[in-house]
């Protein structure tokens, strides 16, 4: 895996190279802990926006609550920091009312799969044309280290000092079974690869789900550490046969550290197209 090269850490280097993706960075300095995986994620996000040449004023990032919730403030675009678990409903309403905008919904693992877990099935089955970025560090960071819906079984956390009694959810399997038309996994330590996935997800017409593996350097010393992730993460060997649910499910089950696109259905209509067709037929 490539060494992380962040827009915040390597500003001079990137400017020298003539890459002007920094225009998508806002003037505000992130409040995340030094070494946080989220720096890598926003870095990939800036680059994806640059390469897609998105107009700043047409981007809206909608987030929930938690460390990931602050993301919109660090992006030079319209941003809406909403409620815990509710980035999906707000982003859906915004996109349906304003088809011309490029809408990203951002959530952490507690946000997306815990408190807001009820929204994911529906945005996926409706195939609303937004890109969903799940910042998955398997811990509640902003409240200081409690177990989340993806914390491994028996891992010790501040809410379960004797070990987490709950079996973790598998976000990729969920997204696949909910009927998301684009399902992928990226890694915060691989901004180039993640950038590519965000680009494809943004271009995808329909609901795009990206699980992003990322460490919490402060509250997770044993699971998703940089060291562990750098060792375990690898690129999925998959490109040609994306629209194969069976393979995707098998990979979701067996390859928890594989990054790349698990599933993509390019033919499926997104929600607005479906509505237009139905109302025309009516």
């Amino acid at each position: 895996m490539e060494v992380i090269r962040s827009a915040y850490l390597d500003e001079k280097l990137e400017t020298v190279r003539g890459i002007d993706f920094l225009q998508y960075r806002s003037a505000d300095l992130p409040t995340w802990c030094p070494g946080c995986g989220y720096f890598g994620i926003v870095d990939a996000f800036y680059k994806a926006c640059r390469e897609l040449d998105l107009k700043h004023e047409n981007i809206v990032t909608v987030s929930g609550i938690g460390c990931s919730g602050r993301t919109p403030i660090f992006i030079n675009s319209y941003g809406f920091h909403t409620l815990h678990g509710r980035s999906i409903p707000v982003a859906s309403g915004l996109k349906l009312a304003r088809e011309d905008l490029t809408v990203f919904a951002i959530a952490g693992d507690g946000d997306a799969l815990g408190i807001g877990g009820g929204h994911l099935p529906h945005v996926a089955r409706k195939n609303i044309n937004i890109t969903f970025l799940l910042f998955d560090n398997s811990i509640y960071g902003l409240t200081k280290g409690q177990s989340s819906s993806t914390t491994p079984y028996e891992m010790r956390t501040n809410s379960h000092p004797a070990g987490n009694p709950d079996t973790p959810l598998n976000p990729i399997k969920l997204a696949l079974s909910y009927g998301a038309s684009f399902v992928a996994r990226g890694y915060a330590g691989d901004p180039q690869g993640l950038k590519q996935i965000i680009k494809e997800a943004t271009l995808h017409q329909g609901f795009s789900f990206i699980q992003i593996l990322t460490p919490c350097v402060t509250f997770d010393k044993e699971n998703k550490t940089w060291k562990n992730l750098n060792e375990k993460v690898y690129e999925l060997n998959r490109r040609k046969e994306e629209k194969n649910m069976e393979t995707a499910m098998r990979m979701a089950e067996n390859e928890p550290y594989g990054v790349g696109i698990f599933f993509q259905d390019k033919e499926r209509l997104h929600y607005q197209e479906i509505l237009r067709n139905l109302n025309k037929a009516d």
Partner: protein
Amino acid sequence: MKDINIVIEICGSAGEGTISAGEILSRFMSGQGFEIMSFDSYPAEIRGFGKCVAHTRISTSRIYSPGKLADVLIALNDKHSIFQLSTLKENGILIYDSQPVRPHKEDKSVVGWTKPGMISYGIPLNMLAHKATGNARGMNMVALGALAALFYVDKHGFTDSIKARYAKKKQIVIDSNVNSFLEGYSWTKKNIKKIDPYSFKGITSPKQKEKLIINGNQLVAKAALDANLSFYAGYPITPATKIMEILSRELPKHGGILLQTEDEISAIGAVIGAGFGGKRAMTATSGPGFALMTEFTGLSVMAEVPAVIIDSQRAGPSTGMPTKTEQSDFNSAVSGGTGDCPRIVLAPTDTKSCYEATVLALYLAEKYQTLVVLLLDFFLSNSIRNINIPEKPFSEYLDANIAPDKNDLKDYQRYKITKNGISPRAIPGTPGGMFFSTGLEHDASGRPNYSEAGHLEMTQKRFRKFNTVLSEAPAPEISIIDRDEFDIGVISWGSSAGAAHEAAMSAQKKGINASSFSSMMVSPFPEKALIEFADKCKKILIPELNFSGQFANFATQILKRHVERLNFITGRPMASEDILQKMKEM
């Protein structure tokens, strides 16, 4: 011209056509030029044998309330009608089935329970229905035929209304309904000797403009479309569901989008998302759904994003009584949620004002970038009135966003501190207008800021908008203004207001010097007008449909004096008779 003011109730079992009969009756009477108000009550269960009552008031003058007691009770079903007899006037008229299919003991027939003074007309409803159609399904039409014969109602006009009601059905359905009606009509003319005083003979109402026969839910949907609604998200709940169903048909025709969500949290979230995108958006729900939406109400106020929630109140806490009416969401609408969270609350006082309130709600939400709650209740949502077709809203009500100009955009501050509290709002897609919104306390640029001075300044700004909102509040309705002193002032809100105004006017006729006050805008409240009114009144009475006197508590804080209360939680609408009785006792 003679006057008429009559309440007719049809009582039957679910599935007996009780509600359709009431609908035909009120449509026909409206067509004849009368004022009508009708209100059905039915069980929450879709099938089964629950009690249905179609209640219709017909009058030559303005109707304020549905009327507590009935002049006429048409009993399609003996078992249920025995209980309905309690709301028949002492000298009321009972029309009952004299030859029911299953012969029963005398005490099982509703006629055995009538009080002396009541007039009973036995019509073989079942037998005549069988004669006309071969089965009992035409009983409701036979009963309408009997009613038409007894009260000298135009037979041909009535059959036209029946034909119109079933116009989309097969010819055989139309014929059997019309035949049943005619069978009831001629049998009654031939066999019944009329001994009651009611008659529509010779009563003609002046030809009026075409009227809309409509309930509150339908009118809210119509108003929203007229006021440029472009997005609706909702989750089914009695008694608000009809609003979503109407808009699901109509909104796409207007280029809008309707989203049925997985829950009410998602519904209001999507509304706020659409509002953030600069589109007019709303949702409708009832108490239990409003409780879920409370999570998002603070965000609308804090991030200053327009949102409209319609809460059609039903009775009780929790799931309560879904098909009963009550006014018990006042507290949660006005002050539910966390923190100091000012919001606009409108409570239309009658069917007609549902239109004005909806237009106003969408306009105020957009202009003041805040939450507007519109409080209906089961009664307003479902009671049917004939009203003049409302005039479409003026253009200034259709586009009210205050957008930033070139100067504002130079160093754009989304939450700029202004004199009236309104900050120019850029809509996504506007170059140079980019901003960050949050439910966290923030500074003028939108960035999180928890400083003492900052929180105070922003809280003041959010409350300051309200002073301006008040200047746009519809004038309070006051029944008598040209006097300096009243013995009793009745202060009311929402759907109780009609009965309160009616009671105050009846009291005048009975020698009680009374006036009445109601305001559609209940938050912020036009306190000055209320105090001015109350200062003229020796005693104050506040009638409302809840147990704890939620509005009375609120008004007491403003008036700082004792108020008499009158509270009902019967699940029925407020009755002017009860208010008048209380006024006599005061």
